[in-house]
């Protein structure tokens, strides 16, 4: 299931709003430039069937995190197969040719962990976190789960009814409805544009559909295994032994959407809604672009951090909304930027006016050096803190691998953030964030907001 609307920068939610600085007080120490993010050298292997392996010794704590990242996901579904990848993921845990479903759960629990499977647009992830004593145990267990699943018909109806319930709940939330319409507006007929299945689709999936999806998409050639933590030198041999006999399977599909920024307006009626849920954005350069890191900095300054301009404006000064945030959301070699907010119904139009005003202001004038420096410190800090864990490290490594970024991308991330100038930010905003080319989705009380939104309906 897609989760692309998760906020990446949320740490600042507790800042008090007014700062009355006393006179003659000592200034807080500035601190030197942040250190670059450096990882201990990983060991990289490619098995003869194409499985890639990255082993990263990390930290002092005797735990191991393992993720099998399979280069297939919702993006590999057909137009009538939405969430079929999730069905398959749910069924992976329900038994193998060697272990029953209960045995998988008990074995994982006895190692101090669990088996987790999830599907996103581009990847299916099978993972577990265990004590170092059981590093080779989790390798064997997860290998069995991905290589020899039963995908039993007996569990299909339970999984179907869970998914139907999830769909029904998500479709009642304004955020879910807004995300669905916005994905369609940005990605159109590409699989990334299909956010929810229909009820009919979910009811139609057979065990053959699930098994066919597995056969067509899962195999050694699409898999990359990441292990981080403390483990013995012999673990590489265990990984090789557990995965080298796996079928090679298909090569990854290259299906990069061709995107054009184009104004559109979608108003979804939710009579009586107290708030209007806004998504406002457009396609932007992908992570492989030289402008990507400057774009992330621009996003943090414009709307992606607590101290950002849009947030200061519509939350702190105007009080229109509690949790506005902009973000850059990436897929494989694709990305989009959007501002998202739930604003009070009566000020839906004025909120949009302020959002557009802040974007235009940044497109016209570079930000002040101090303002930008504060944002860069924040980004450097968030980057190192979020990545200072086994799972954080794996998340970064797999991002770099999925996008095909250079090996030194992570090491250079903080220096590259710090290099961004006020002029860069203005240029990025001007080049890529044109409100006249943005898609606008609003979910709210149509009778009360249609008139307010007229100026934005046709840009």
């Amino acid at each position, binding site marked *: 299931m897609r989760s692309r609307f998760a906020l990446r920068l949320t*740490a*600042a939610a*507790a*800042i*008090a709003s*007014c*700062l009355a*600085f*006393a006179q003659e*007080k*000592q200034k*807080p*120490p500035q*601190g*030197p*430039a*942040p*250190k*670059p993010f*450096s990882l*201990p*050298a990983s*060991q990289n*292997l490619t*098995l*003869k069937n194409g499985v890639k392996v990255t*082993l990263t*010794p990390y*930290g*002092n*704590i*005797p*735990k191991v995190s393992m993720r099998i990242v399979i280069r297939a996901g919702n993006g590999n579904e057909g137009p009538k197969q939405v969430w079929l990848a999730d069905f398959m993921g749910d069924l992976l845990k329900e038994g193998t040719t060697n272990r029953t479903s209960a045995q998988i759960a008990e074995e994982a629990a*006895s190692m*101090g962990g669990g088996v987790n499977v999830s599907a996103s647009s581009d990847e299916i992830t099978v993972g577990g976190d265990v*004590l*170092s*004593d059981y590093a080779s145990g989790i390798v064997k267990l997860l290998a069995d789960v991905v290589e020899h699943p039963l995908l039993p018909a007996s569990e299909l109806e339970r999984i179907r009814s869970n998914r139907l319930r999830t769909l029904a709940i998500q479709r009642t939330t304004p955020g879910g409805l807004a995300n669905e319409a916005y994905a369609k507006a940005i990605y159109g007929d590409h699989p990334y544009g299909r956010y929810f299945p229909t009820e009919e689709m979910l009811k139609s999936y057979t065990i053959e559909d699930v098994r066919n999806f597995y056969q067509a998409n899962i195999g050694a050639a699409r898999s990359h295994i990441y292990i981080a933590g*403390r*483990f*013995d*030198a012999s673990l*590489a*041999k265990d990984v*090789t032994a557990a995965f*080298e006999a796996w079928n090679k399977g298909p090569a990854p599909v290259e299906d990069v959407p061709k995107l054009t920024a184009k104004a559109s307006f979608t108003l979804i009626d939710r009579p009586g809604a107290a708030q209007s849920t806004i998504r406002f954005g457009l396609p932007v350069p992908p992570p492989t672009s030289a402008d990507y890191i400057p774009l992330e900095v621009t996003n943090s300054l414009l709307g992606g951090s*607590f101290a950002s301009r849009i947030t200061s404006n519509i939350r702190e000064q105007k009080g229109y909304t509690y949790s506005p945030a902009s973000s850059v959301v990436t897929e494989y070699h694709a990305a989009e930027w959007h501002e998202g907010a739930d604003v009070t119904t009566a000020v839906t139009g004025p909120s949009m006016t302020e959002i557009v005003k802040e974007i235009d202001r940044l497109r016209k004038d570079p930000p002040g050096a101090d303002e930008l420096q*504060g944002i860069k*410190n*924040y*980004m*450097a*800090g*968030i*980057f*190192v*803190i979020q*990545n*200072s*864990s086994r799972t954080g490290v794996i998340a970064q490594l797999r991002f770099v691998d999925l996008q095909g970024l250079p090996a030194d991308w992570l090491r250079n991330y903080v220096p590259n953030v710090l290099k961004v100038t006020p002029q860069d930010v203005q240029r990025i905003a001007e080049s890529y964030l044109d409100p006249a080319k943005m898609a606008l989705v609003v979910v709210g009380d149509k009778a009360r907001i249609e008139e307010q939104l007229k100026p934005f309906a046709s840009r």
Partner: protein
Amino acid sequence: MKKALAFSAFLAVASMALAADVKEVKVPIKQYKLKNGLTIILSEDHTAPTYSIAVSYNVGSRDEKRGRTGFAHLFEHMMFQGSENAARGEHSALISANGGSLNGTTNEDRTLYFETLPANQIDLGLFLESDRMRALAVTQFNLDNQRNAVQEERRLRVDNQPYGKTFEAVNETAYDNFGYKHSVVGSMEDLNAASLQDVQDFFKRYYAPNNAVVAIVGDFKSDELMAKVKKYFEEIPSQPPPPQPDMAEPEQKAERRKTLEDAFAQLPRIDIAYKIGPGNTPDFYALRVMSQILGSGQSSRLYQRLVKEQEMATGANAFAAEQRGPGLEQFSVMARPGKDLAAIEKTLYEEIAKIQSEPVTDEELEKVRMQARRSQVSGAQSTLNRAATLADDFVDFGDANILNERYQKMMAVTKQDVMRVAKKYLTENNRTVIITLPKKTAPAGPAGPGQ
């Protein structure tokens, strides 16, 4: 082909220099004392360019006087309201603006403050913590404001929660000594009575460097860091050592029993507490092993008997609370609708009698050891966890190294130890029974403010 691959892999790993056993938790600890009596504990970890700082003050609700309950916790809130060189709100703003996080927490035995920040901002953490240790900005506005916040917290967590009053009733009934008898959050009346003078006196008496410990874990060089720590903290004047409360509990002579009605509770519940000794003792670790076998998780004896076999309860737990002073061994069972609490209580006593008279099994002991290992590892997981544990263990037990030893202490517990502590502490005269029954009438809404 295959062999060549495996061989090259082996070589690469062999160069990865992991000399120590990868399965052990060994947190390196350096301990210092400044001239003003402030204890500093440093633990280097160069895994990532971040660090955590934890400051634990040797003051908790156990130090509160009658008529001033809830004061230690109220004071914790005041510590975020500004100090001489950090305006109101600036402390959190500076931490967040650098990507960090922060919080504070109060319990019976101590008050703890902590931050996580990028390593290049090591001065910032020292600056902020030393500034509020040296010169807290105490104003009537801040006090009134935070008094309201704490009273809201009490309504939210105690007055407006099912079984919120049950937790207070257990301690109130079981303890004779006022130190642990009253709750951390305190009473509305006492919170209303707190004055600005109280805050100033409390700060001077308890927030002195000689009554605190600073633990820092993360990416720094200890020698360089100590020079900075001295610069920021060493000039803060020490104070006379604060009075230490006498936590002694008189021997209990008979069972105590109380029944509450709870407007928010849906199911009847029984809580049974036995007075035990302080934490970090051989008896305590044996009680912890016993608690896990009886009532931790779905494979535990109480869950299997009361929830699975007899289907009398929806949940059953046993827990040995670790305190500096006398703790409590606590059992709690939530009854299924229509089930008899007296029958549940009887079954509980049968299980207690059994663990007093028959040794636990090898499998049960093994499972507890596994759990102990997991909790040792997860307790040391982040730099923040480590810093907080080092600081707390030093304040509570005078020994920061317990983090490295707790697991071995659990491992040392034998079957005989479990039987011995079960017989010693789980006696009829030593127990307190609190029954909570759903109130028949529907709740009229959130509880109103106290008088």
